[in-house]
C-alpha cells in the first residue's frame, strides 16, 4: 500500500510539469492561433536531451538549459515550412511530424548500428536513445535517505520553474507584443496590412512554445526516472490540448487550472489502480474514455473554457482605463 502523501506529491509534481506544458500550448494556440498538434514531440526532445546530458556528466542546470534550447531550435526549424499552411493542414503536418520524430527516435540506434555494419562490417555498440527500451534518467535532485524531503525538493524545483514560466509568459502577453500575437490569431492578413511581420511572430511563438515544452519534458524525465518513445504518444498532446481548452483558451491561469483538472483525472485512475487492487475494468481505459468524452462535452457546451480570456493589460492601458472611469 503506497504512501498517500508521496502519491499526492507525485500528482502535484505532474501538475507542475503539465502546467508548464499547457502554458506553452496556450502561447501557440491560445494567443497566436497556431494549432500545434505535436506538443508531445517537444516534450520528448526536452526529455531525451536532459537524459543524455546528465548521462554524460553535465550539471543538471546545464541539462535544463540544453533541453530548453534544443527543443526551441528544433521547434523553430520544424515550423519554418509549416507556417504558411492552413490551420488544419498545419495540425495534420505537425502531428505527423511528431509521430515520425518518435519513430526515428525509437529506431535511431538500431539504424546507426545497421548502417555502420553495412558500410564497414563493424559491430558497434551505439546506444544514444535506448530505442524501444527507453532510458533511465538520473534525477536532478539528490537527497539520499529521506524520500519525503526528496519529493519536497523536487516540488520546489518544478514549482519555482513553473512560477518563472508563468511570469515570463504573462510579461509577454500583457505587452504590445502579446497584442500582436492575438491580432495574428484574429486576422493574420489584417495584421500584415498594418505592417506586422507575422511569420516572425509565429516563429517566435512556436520557438517559445517548444522551448517551454522542452523544459517540461526535462523536468518530467528526471522525476519519473525513466523515459521511452511510448511515453510521448499523441494522446499526451491531446491531453495538453484538453488542459488549454478546458481551462480557458488564451488565459494563462486557465492553462494552469486545466492542467490541474486533467491531471486529477489521471490521478483518480492511478489512485484506483494503486490503492484498490484488482478490478474488472482497467482504470487506464476508463481514464481515457472519460477524457475523450469530456473534451467532446467541453467543445460542445463550453468551448471557451472555464476562465475567460482577459483583455491585454499593459500599464498605459490600465492607467487610461481607470483614469477614464474616474473622469
Amino acid at each position, binding site marked *: 500500500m503506497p504512501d498517500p502523501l508521496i502519491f499526492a506529491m507525485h500528482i502535484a509534481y505532474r501538475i507542475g510539469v503539465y502546467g508548464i506544458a499547457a502554458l506553452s500550448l496556450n502561447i501557440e494556440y491560445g494567443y497566436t492561433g497556431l494549432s500545434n498538434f505535436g506538443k508531445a514531440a517537444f516534450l520528448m526532445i526536452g526529455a531525451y536531451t536532459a537524459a543524455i546530458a546528465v548521462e554524460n556528466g553535465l550539471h543538471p542546470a546545464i541539462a535544463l538549459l540544453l533541453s530548453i534550447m534544443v527543443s526551441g531550435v528544433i521547434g523553430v526549424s520544424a515550423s519554418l515550412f509549416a507556417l504558411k499552411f492552413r490551420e488544419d493542414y498545419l495540425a495534420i503536418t505537425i502531428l505527423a511530424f511528431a509521430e515520425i520524430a518518435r519513430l526515428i527516435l525509437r529506431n535511431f540506434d538500431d539504424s546507426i548500428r545497421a548502417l555502420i555494419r553495412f558500410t564497414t562490417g563493424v559491430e558497434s555498440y551505439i546506444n544514444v536513445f535506448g530505442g524501444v527500451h527507453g532510458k533511465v534518467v538520473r534525477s536532478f535532485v539528490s537527497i539520499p535517505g529521506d524520500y519525503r524531503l526528496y519529493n519536497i525538493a523536487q516540488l520546489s524545483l518544478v514549482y519555482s520553474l513553473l512560477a518563472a514560466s508563468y511570469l515570463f509568459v504573462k510579461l509577454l502577453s500583457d505587452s504590445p507584443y502579446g497584442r500582436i500575437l492575438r*491580432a495574428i490569431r484574429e486576422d493574420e492578413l489584417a495584421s500584415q496590412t498594418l505592417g506586422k511581420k*507575422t511569420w516572425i511572430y509565429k516563429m517566435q511563438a512556436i520557438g517559445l512554445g517548444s522551448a517551454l515544452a522542452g523544459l517540461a519534458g526535462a523536468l518530467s524525465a528526471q522525476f519519473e526516472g525513466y523515459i521511452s518513445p511510448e511515453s510521448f504518444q499523441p494522446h499526451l498532446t491531446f491531453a495538453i490540448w484538453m488542459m488549454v481548452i478546458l481551462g480557458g483558451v488564451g488565459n494563462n491561469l486557465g492553462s494552469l487550472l486545466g492542467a490541474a483538472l486533467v491531471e486529477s483525472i489521471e490521478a483518480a485512475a492511478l489512485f484506483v489502480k494503486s490503492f484498490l487492487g484488482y478490478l474488472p475494468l482497467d482504470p487506464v481505459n476508463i481514464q481515457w474514455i472519460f477524457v475523450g468524452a469530456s473534451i467532446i462535452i467541453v467543445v460542445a457546451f463550453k468551448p471557451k473554457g472555464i476562465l475567460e480570456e482577459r483583455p491585454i493589460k499593459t500599464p498605459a492601458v490600465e492607467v487610461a482605463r481607470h483614469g477614464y472611469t474616474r473622469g
Partner: protein
Amino acid sequence: MAILEVRRLSKSFGGLKAVDSVDLDVEEETITGLIGPNGSGKTTLFNMISGVVPRDSGEIWFEGKRIDGLKPFEIYERGIVRSFQIPRLFWKLMVLDNMLLAVRGFSGESFIGAIFRRWRWTAEEKRLVDKALDILNILGLSDSAFKPAYQLSGGQMKLLEIGRALMADPKLLLLDEPTAGVNPKLAYSIFGKIEDIRRAYGTTFFIIEHRVETLFSHADWVYVMSNGSLIYGGKPSGVISDSRVQKAYLGDIHAT
C-alpha cells in the same frame, strides 16, 4: 506632384476583366475621390495598390518608386494605409487595442523589447493611448474604448476602421467607403475631420465613396470607373455633366 501614379494597371479574374488598363494620378495633399457603379473595379484597384491582390500587368508608383509586387506589410512601411469596405477589425480585442495595433515601429512590439525594455515602451504607449483616445473622441467612440470590437454597431465599426488608419500617420490613406452605413450628419463631420487631418499632417486621401454629394463638396479631384475602365478624371464639378458618366450611371443612382 503626384504621390501615387498608376499606369496601365489591369487585373482579370478568370474571364472577367475587373480592372482594364487604368491610368491615374493622385496629387500630394489632395482629397481624391473614386466613384463608380457597383462592380466597376474600384475595390480591386485598391487591393492592387495595397498589395493584397497581385496585378496582372501595369505599374504602380508611390513617391517616385515602384511598389507593385510588394507585400502588404512593405506597402504599409512605405506609408500607405488602407481601410476595408467590410471592416477587418480584431473582433475579440478592445477598441483601444485595435487602435494601438495600427502604429508603426513600436519598441514594445519586439520579443526582447516586450520583456526587457518595459519602461521605454510604457512611456511610448502612454503617448499612443492618449492619441488614440483623442481620435476616438472625435469619432464619437469614446464610450466604447474599452469594449471588444464585436460589440460596436455597424456604423461604429466603420469609424473605428478610419480611426485605425489615422493612428499610423500615413502619407497616403486609401479609404474604401468610409461613410457607408453612417448617418448623413456624421458622414459630413467625418469628411470635415479628413480635411482637418489633411491640413495638419499633409496626408493625401484617396477615397472610394458612394455618398457622391458629400464627396463632391470636399474632394479636389474625382475619378470615375465603370466596368473596369476609367471613364473620367477631373474636378468634381465636371463629373455630373460628363456624358460618359451619365451613361454609366443611367438607372443607377447611388445617393445613400
